[in-house]
C-alpha cells in the first residue's frame, strides 16, 4: 500500500523529534521586474481591444453581405496579425515573463494561442476572398487568383498562410507523436518565416493602414519590438551568458541507478541570479549532445560549488550524459521558470514531489523559509534519490519528510483525507507540486478537495 511513511519513522508511542530551528540556505532575493500572469493577460487583452478599435475607427459603414464579409475579414486579419506578434513575444524567453508567468504557462498559452491564430487566419482568408468576390461580381476562385496574382505582397501572404496551415497540421498531437519532438521543434521555427512573409501584405493591403501613418508606425513598432526581444533574449543574451560565465562540467556523479548529477562551475555565477526551483536549457558541447538543448532544473540551491542538475536516464540524450567528461563546455540559457520562492506567501509550505519532480523541490526544500513538509513519491524505493541529503535537511531545519512508494491504489497516496491527516493544517499551506502530469493532477485534485485554495497551489508541468 502506497502510504506515506514519515522520516524518521515515528511510532505511535515513539520518539519525538526535537525540532531544530530552521536554518535555510542564503536566499537569493530575486531582483528584477517580473510580470505576473494576470496583468500580462490584461495587457494582451488591451492590445487586442486597441487593434479592434483601429478597425472601428476606420469603418464608417458595413453595407450588405460584401460589407459584412470583408469587414469580418479585416477584424480577424488584424487580430491574427496582432496575435502572431504576441505569440512570438511569449516565446522570446523574456526573463520578466519567464520568471513571472512561468515557462510552462507561457508554453501553454502559446500552444492554445497558436491554434486560435490558425483559426483566425483561416476565417480571415475565407471571408476576405468571399467579400471581395461579391464586391467585384466575380466567382470566389477567380477573385482569389486575382488577389494573389495582382495585389501587392500577396504571393508572400499566401506562402505564409500555407506555412501556418502546415505547421498547424503537424502540431496536432497525433502528428507530433509520429514525427518526433526534435523534428517538430525545428519545423516549428518556420512560424518566424510565416510572420515575416505575412507582414508585408498587412500594411500593403490592409484597409486600416492605408494612409494612416500612426497605425503603420504602431504596427512596425509591434513587430520590430517583438523581433528585438527575440534577437536579444533568444540569440544574443545566451551568447553573452556563454562568454561571460564560461559554464563547464565540473563532475558527474551517480545518485541512483539511472540517475546522475552533474556539477556545473563557471565564473561569477552569482550574476546569473538563479533561484532554487528554476531550470536552464543545457547544451553540452560534446559529441552527440551539442545539437540539442534540454531543460533540467537545479537540484540544489546555487552555491560555492556552482550549479547542480540531476538527470534521470530517460532517452538517448540523458543516457549519454553519464559519459560527460569534466571540463566539457556548456552553452546554457536561463534561468527560466516561475517555480520559485516568489510564489510562497504562507508560513507553512508543503512540497509534493513525484519521480523526477524531486529535482527542483530538493532545491526548494533546502532554501524556502518557513515550516516545510516534503511528500516524495516514487514507484520503487530504489527510485528515491537524494535520500541522504533530504534527510539531512529535514533534521537540520526541522522539516517534515514523508516517502511513498508502491503501486497506486484506492485511498492513497493522493487522497484528500489521507493528505489532511499526514499534513496537519493542510488548507493553510502553500503547496508546490512537481512530478508526472497524471500524478500532479491527482495531487491537485486531492488538495482542492481538502480545501487548499487554488491560488496557493503551485505546479510546473510541461505538457502541452
Amino acid at each position, binding site marked *: 500500500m502506497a502510504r506515506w511513511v514519515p522520516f524518521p519513522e515515528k511510532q505511535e508511542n515513539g520518539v519525538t523529534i526535537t525540532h531544530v530551528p530552521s536554518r535555510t540556505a542564503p536566499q537569493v532575493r530575486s531582483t528584477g521586474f517580473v510580470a505576473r500572469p494576470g496583468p500580462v493577460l490584461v495587457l494582451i487583452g488591451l492590445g487586442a481591444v486597441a487593434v479592434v478599435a483601429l478597425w472601428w475607427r476606420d469603418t464608417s*459603414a458595413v453595407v450588405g453581405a460584401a460589407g459584412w464579409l470583408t469587414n469580418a475579414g479585416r477584424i480577424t486579419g488584424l487580430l491574427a496579425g496582432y496575435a502572431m506578434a504576441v505569440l512570438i513575444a511569449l516565446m522570446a524567453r523574456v526573463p520578466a515573463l519567464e520568471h513571472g508567468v512561468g515557462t510552462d504557462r507561457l508554453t501553454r498559452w502559446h500552444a492554445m494561442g497558436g491554434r486560435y491564430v490558425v483559426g483566425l487566419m483561416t476565417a480571415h482568408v475565407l471571408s476576405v476572398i468571399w467579400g471581395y468576390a461579391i464586391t467585384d461580381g466575380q466567382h470566389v476562385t477567380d477573385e482569389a487568383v486575382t488577389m494573389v496574382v*495582382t495585389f501587392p505582397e500577396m504571393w508572400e501572404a499566401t506562402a505564409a498562410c500555407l506555412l501556418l496551415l502546415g505547421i498547424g497540421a503537424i502540431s496536432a498531437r497525433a502528428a507530433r507523436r509520429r514525427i518526433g519532438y526534435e523534428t517538430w521543434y525545428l519545423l516549428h521555427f518556420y512560424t518566424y518565416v510565416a510572420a515575416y512573409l505575412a507582414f508585408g501584405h498587412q500594411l500593403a493591403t490592409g484597409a486600416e493602414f492605408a494612409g494612416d501613418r500612426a497605425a503603420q508606425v504602431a504596427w512596425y513598432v509591434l513587430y520590430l519590438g517583438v523581433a528585438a526581444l527575440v534577437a536579444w533574449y533568444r540569440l544574443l543574451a545566451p551568447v553573452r551568458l556563454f562568454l561571460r560565465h564560461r559554464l563547464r562540467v565540473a563532475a558527474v556523479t551517480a545518485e541512483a541507478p539511472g540517475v546522475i548529477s552533474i556539477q556545473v562551475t563557471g565564473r561569477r555565477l552569482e550574476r546569473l541570479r538563479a533561484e532554487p526551483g528554476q531550470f536552464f536549457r543545457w547544451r553540452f558541447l560534446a559529441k552527440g549532445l551539442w545539437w540539442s538543448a534540454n531543460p533540467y532544473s537545479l537540484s540544489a540551491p546555487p552555491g560555492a560549488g556552482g550549479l547542480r542538475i540531476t538527470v534521470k536516464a530517460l532517452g538517448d540524450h540523458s543516457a549519454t550524459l553519464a559519459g560527460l567528461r569534466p571540463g566539457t563546455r556548456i552553452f546554457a540559457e536561463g534561468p527560466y521558470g516561475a517555480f520559485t520562492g516568489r510564489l510562497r506567501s504562507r508560513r507553512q509550505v508543503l512540497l509534493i514531489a513525484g519521480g523526477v519532480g524531486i529535482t527542483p523541490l530538493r532545491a526548494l526544500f533546502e532554501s524556502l523559509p518557513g515550516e516545510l513538509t516534503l511528500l516524495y513519491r516514487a514507484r520503487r524505493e530504489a527510485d528515491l534519490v537524494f535520500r541522504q541529503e533530504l534527510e539531512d535537511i529535514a533534521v537540520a531545519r526541522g522539516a517534515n519528510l514523508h516517502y511513498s512508494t508502491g503501486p497506486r491504489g484506492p485511498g492513497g497516496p493522493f487522497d484528500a483525507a489521507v493528505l489532511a491527516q499526514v499534513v496537519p493544517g493542510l488548507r493553510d499551506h502553500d503547496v508546490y507540486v512537481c512530478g508526472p502530469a497524471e500524478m500532479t493532477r491527482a495531487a491537485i485534485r486531492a488538495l482542492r478537495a481538502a480545501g487548499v485554495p487554488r491560488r496557493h497551489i503551485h505546479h510546473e508541468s510541461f505538457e502541452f
Partner: protein
Amino acid sequence: MPIRRALLAVLATAVGLVLLLSFKPHDVSQAAQPPAALAQKQSGTTPAQGSTPAQGTTPAQGTTVTGDPADTRWGPVQVAITVSGGKIADVQVLQAPDGNRRDIEINDAALPILTQEALSAQSAQIDTVSGATYTSEGYTRSLQSAIDRAGL
C-alpha cells in the same frame, strides 16, 4: 476538455464579430457625411478650405473645395470639387492610388461613377461636344444639336 474549449473560442469569436459588425450603420447614406466645408458652402460664400487644384488647366469658375483623403482598400483617394452657382461644376482627382495594376484598374472603374454624378451637360457648362461621328439624322438627337440650338 480541449474540444469544448475550442468550440467555446470559436463561438465567442463569432459572437464578437457579429456584435462588432452589427453596431456599425448598414446604410452608406447614413454614414457618409458631406465634407464640412461643402455643407457650409451651400449657404455661405466663404470657402472653409478653398484651395486651387494641384494639377490641371485653368479651372472652371467657382470656388474649389478640397475634400479630406478617403481611405479605400488600396490607398487614399482625394478629390477637389468646384462649385459654381450652387452646382458642382468640376471634379478633380488629387490623389488616387496607382501603385500597381489593380489600383489603376480601380481608378478606371470608380472615377467615372463620380464623374457621372457631376457632369450632366448643363452643369458642366460646355461649349461643344466631341463624340463618335454622327450622321445628319443622329445629329438631331445629339447633345451638340441642343448646344447649337441654344446658341442659334
